[in-house]
């Protein structure tokens, strides 16, 4: 385990101290607890959007708190849900009368705690809370059937949910509309990842799994959850083809569709390699007659020092395009209107 940290126990506290010290203009903490991060800008009458989840995925989750995106984020230990109390503290701080939308990933711990927090917010604080749970990793669980439980992991695609719901809230849409937008994005986004190396939870002290020098795992989750297939490392084009085919079949994305794309590095994969991947994505989509509306590329949802990448496709219509184009200004994601 080679990390620039002081002690595993103080890792997240010290990271948070660094964040508040680095961005005093953008973020502050609520309730005297560093784990309850909120935007310094509160807009009266705007729906508040809160997210939360374990640490170790920067810029996810807290890096998207800012104008045009999220209003607050509760932060857990590495790969650990924050507590319901912390979620509640964020909720109270960001509510400005129009209610609060929780957007988070489909993980047991997060669900239990956000449910508990929503109950507390409703009963104790009289804040109207709605929740949207993102789960779009096609390598986990079966395609979601209407009405059935979604067993898929939420991974990098949640960025699109934040972006569109954040823009909808910034346009002062009411809670039910912001929720509808978030759900629409969830329905239209699909992700798949590949891992080349593991990552180490500091307090565990050793990698959570092993991959031989010539192996990769297709479909691995961002906490190292097993994927679909472990095999020899393949050329970039073959990796992309395998991932992209799974993604495209799943929705399915079809000839004539328009998509936004997110190529996401998991932590240790250079941008150079992500562009090599995007080259192939562009080729395949062109062949299939799927049009690219806009491309996002870089590290959006990581797994600390894991090497690997994920691809997310979002099928867009005029409404989602307009929301994607909307400007955003957060510690990690800045975008001028395009």
């Amino acid at each position, binding site marked *: 385990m080679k990390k620039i940290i002081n002690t595993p126990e103080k890792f997240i506290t010290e990271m948070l101290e660094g964040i508040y010290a680095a961005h005093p203009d953008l973020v502050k903490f609520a309730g005297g607890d560093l784990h309850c991060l909120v935007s310094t800008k509160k807009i009266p009458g705007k729906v508040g959007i809160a997210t939360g989840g374990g640490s170790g995925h920067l810029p996810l989750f807290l890096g998207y708190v800012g104008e045009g995106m999220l209003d607050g984020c509760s932060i*857990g230990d590495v*790969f*650990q*849900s*924050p*507590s*319901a*109390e*912390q979620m509640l503290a964020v909720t109270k701080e960001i509510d400005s009368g129009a209610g609060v939308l929780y957007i988070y990933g489909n*993980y*047991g*711990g997060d669900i*239990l*705690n956000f449910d*508990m927090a929503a109950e507390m917010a409703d009963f104790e604080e009289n804040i109207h809370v709605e929740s949207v749970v993102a789960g779009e*990793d096609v390598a*986990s*669980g*079966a395609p979601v059937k209407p009405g059935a*439980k979604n*067993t*898929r*992991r939420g991974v990098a695609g949640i960025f699109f949910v934040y972006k569109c719901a954040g823009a909808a809230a910034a346009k002062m849409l009411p809670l039910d509309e912001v929720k509808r937008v978030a759900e629409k994005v969830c329905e239209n986004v699909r992700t798949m990842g590949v891992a080349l190396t593991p990552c180490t*939870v500091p*307090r*565990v002290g050793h990698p*959570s*799994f092993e991959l031989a020098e010539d192996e990769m795992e297709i479909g691995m*989750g961002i*906490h*190292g*959850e*097993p994927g679909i297939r472990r095999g020899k490392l393949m050329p970039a084009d073959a990796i992309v083809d395998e991932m992209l085919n799974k993604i495209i079949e799943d929705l399915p994305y079809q000839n004539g569709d328009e998509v936004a794309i997110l190529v996401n590095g998991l932590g240790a994969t250079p941008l150079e390699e992500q562009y090599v991947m995007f080259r192939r994505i562009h080729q395949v989509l062109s062949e299939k007659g799927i049009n690219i509306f806009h491309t996002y590329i870089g590290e959006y949802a990581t797994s600390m020092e894991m090497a690997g990448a994920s691809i997310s496709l979002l099928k867009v219509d005029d409404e989602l395009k307009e929301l994607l184009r909307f400007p955003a200004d957060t510690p990690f994601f800045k975008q001028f209107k395009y």
Partner: protein
Amino acid sequence: MLNACDIKKLMQCWAEVMVQNRDYLIELDSHVGDSDLGLTMGDGFTAASNAIADLDESDIGKLVYNAGKAMSTAVPSTMGTLMASGLMAVGKTLKGCTDLDMDGIVSFFQAYFDGVQSRGKAQVGDKTFLDGLFGAVESLKTDAAANLPLKEAAEHASQAAHQGFLNTKGMLAQFGRAAGRGEQSRDLLDPGAAVADLLMKGFAIFISEKADSI
């Protein structure tokens, strides 16, 4: 009969069992999930135990409730939150009790089971913690009805929990990270059920040590 002091000791015994089995739980969780279960259970039960160790409180319900709250803030993972929910449910059920007889002990574990179930909404057979605890609670009920000595009943419950844990192999996971693996999940033992196994093992050890020391 167990009093508040015994409950504190039981909680400490659980903390020790979880800390001792840290690597075992990490290993189990590493096949299914995110390898954290050893950390969360060790920390969570330690926090729960520490929170009540020095409390001057004879109400067992209040003690256990506070232990649960401490667990909930210390380890808000799936199992952390579920164990917290279980303990808090025990707390609510046993509020006002200062001593537990055999029926009280049955209520304790029944409330624990119900608290976990109402928070997590899983059913027996869904390959979760519940599958470990379920048989143990049933065994306690049977042995209580048969008036068996506590030490023997605890032994049986521990065996039942262990069997429940082993039986999770073959089940299809419906909850947690394992659910994302679909049919592949059948081959694996459920780590949460292993916690139920350890809980009942800890209980049996505690009871047997207590019996020996009298």
